[in-house]
């Protein structure tokens, strides 16, 4: 960046309002979701039918199996399955 006049500084501070708190909190809780995630991944690796259902509709498959619907776990699972 070049000039630091006060008007420009004000504009640039204004350009980054906070993200919604709930979004930030959910992302911060990703490490806590990790434990639940490992169990689901292990099961998907051992059970082809479960894995197929997860790939077809992740959230519905988790719900059908009685897993708590944790958005952080869902996001991590999406990433895991996409990278395999």
């Amino acid at each position: 960046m070049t000039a630091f006049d006060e008007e420009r500084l004000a504009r640039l501070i204004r350009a980054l309002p906070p993200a919604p708190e709930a979004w930030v909190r959910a992302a911060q809780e990703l490490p806590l979701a990790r434990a639940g995630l490992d169990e689901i991944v292990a099961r998907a690796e051992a059970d082809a039918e479960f894995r197929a259902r997860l790939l077809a509709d992740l959230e519905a498959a988790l719900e059908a199996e009685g897993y708590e619907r944790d958005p952080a776990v869902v996001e991590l699972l999406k990433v895991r399955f996409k990278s395999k």
Partner: protein
Amino acid sequence: MAQTLSDRELVARCRSGDQQAWAELVDRFSRYVYAISVQAFRLPDSDAEDVFQEVFARAYEHLDKLRDDAAVRPWLAQLTRRLCIDRLRATSRERPTADEELELAGSEETLTMLEDALTVHEALAAAPEHCREILDRFFARDESYRTIGEALDLPSGTIASRISRCLGRLRELLEGRTRPDTPSGSR
């Protein structure tokens, strides 16, 4: 909260499993990721939320693939841009859009401006707390003098002059920045 760790140090701590460091990393870059999706790519909130969560989920899962820990900022920016384009591509299936158009969707001018904004917020995080608080509340959170006065226990009449002084202080901080591996981000 003032930033004390550089991006490099923060990423190293995240990689070692430090949950507090992860929370700090999310905090540091949350505004930037959010702004890219809603300002540069103009995603609606529901799509922006999906992108936001996916950016941090991917970052969390793939932090070990980052070659240079100090480069977390451009890495996250690139990841966010890519996911925004994917999202636009998915929503434009009914109304086919050329790939070049999607690439151009994130206005380069806005992305550059957001880069600069992150640099300013980084300097703000290193500013004295009273300045950080008042500038963030007034400009980024769009709070009125009255709200700020009540929250910080200040007479409304002093707020304008304090904002002006703090902008001057921030300007000095930015002009004095030379270290290449400083923390980047905002809160």
